């Protein structure tokens, strides 16, 4: 028997009514994306070479950021393309099976999970909102004039103390702002969660990222949601907001992440 040379990479679960994969779509290995059709659910997959995607080579690749970026973008490209014509439940990056029988088995084993996930996201879209503050604008103005009575030593210590207190106050105000904004946006959403703030070196922003949220919003409220983002942006001059999306509902595919205001 000839040894298998490929594995199956899974992208997203879609309703079985979906006919075929979007034409011309290619995946993480540049492979054509196809559909494995089950009775009630189907799954978008690609056949990828084991030489790159078996356990060891895959682990090595994931340590290579250029590879990781390309693969992450490809994974997203497939899911995003499918999301334009159907409800989709995105699957976690790097979900691989050896053969179709195993994929079909998972589809039927997890039928309830996938079906309820599809229902949860139907007619809804994930939006990302990040908020940044300029810490200088949050800091209370230094109101302590240099006093002649202070020795240079005490003046220095007082300045240091004031600086530390100012930092603490600024952080507290930033956290309050973040909470206000998150609550206002979560009120318009059916699901809301906060991702950890992104590292400034990765995301290349200035100031502090005080919010990195995802919101699952009914499509008919999308305009209202965007207007709320604008409104927060204008209400708080020290805060800058960024809206991103529409995203496939990556962050809202499991029940326990659905609760409003949940901190991840």
């Amino acid at each position: 028997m000839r040894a298998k040379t490929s594995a199956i990479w899974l992208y997203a679960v879609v309703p079985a009514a979906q006919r075929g994969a979007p034409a011309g779509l290619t995946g993480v290995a540049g492979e054509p994306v196809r559909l494995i059709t089950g009775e009630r659910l189907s799954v978008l997959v690609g056949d990828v070479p084991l030489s790159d995607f078996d356990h060891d080579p895959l682990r090595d690749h994931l340590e290579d950021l250029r590879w990781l970026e390309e693969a992450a973008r490809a994974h997203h490209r497939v899911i995003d393309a499918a999301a334009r014509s159907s409800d989709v439940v995105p699957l976690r990056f790097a979900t691989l099976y050896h053969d179709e029988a195993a994929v079909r088995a998972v589809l039927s084993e997890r039928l309830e999970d996938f079906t309820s996930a599809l229902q949860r996201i139907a007619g809804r879209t994930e939006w990302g909102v990040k908020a940044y503050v300029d810490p200088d604008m949050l800091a209370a103005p230094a109101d302590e004039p240099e006093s002649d009575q202070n020795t240079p030593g005490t003046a220095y210590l007082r300045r240091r103390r004031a600086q530390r207190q100012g930092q603490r106050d600024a952080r507290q105000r930033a956290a309050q702002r973040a909470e206000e904004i998150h609550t206002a946006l979560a009120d318009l959403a059916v699901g809301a969660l906060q991702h950890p703030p992104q590292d400034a070196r990765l995301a290349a922003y200035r100031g502090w990222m005080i919010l990195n949220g995802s919101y699952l919003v009914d499509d008919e409220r999308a305009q209202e949601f965007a207007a709320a983002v604008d409104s927060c942006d204008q209400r708080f001059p020290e805060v800058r907001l960024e809206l991103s999306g529409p995203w496939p509902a990556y962050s809202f595919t499991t029940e326990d992440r659905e609760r409003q205001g949940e901190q991840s």
Partner: protein
Amino acid sequence: MSTARDEHLPGQSPIAWQGQQIALVDLLDRVLAGGVVISGEITLCIADIDLVRISLRALVASVRAGWDTNTAGGTANPMAKGNIP
């Protein structure tokens, strides 16, 4: 790429990507940490989160190398590690 909202356009409609490159960090927040987890047959023994950390650490290192030479300083971000007070 996310949409910068510096211009304060009231009632601005949600903006589709329209061919813009999505920021990698935004993508990794969702693609590596989101989506339904099912145990594949080829499983990565390293826990997902470790994988992300390892990768991000490498990315930080590579970005920092360029950053330090190009940018004097840069604002430290006390929020970056999730330590919102």
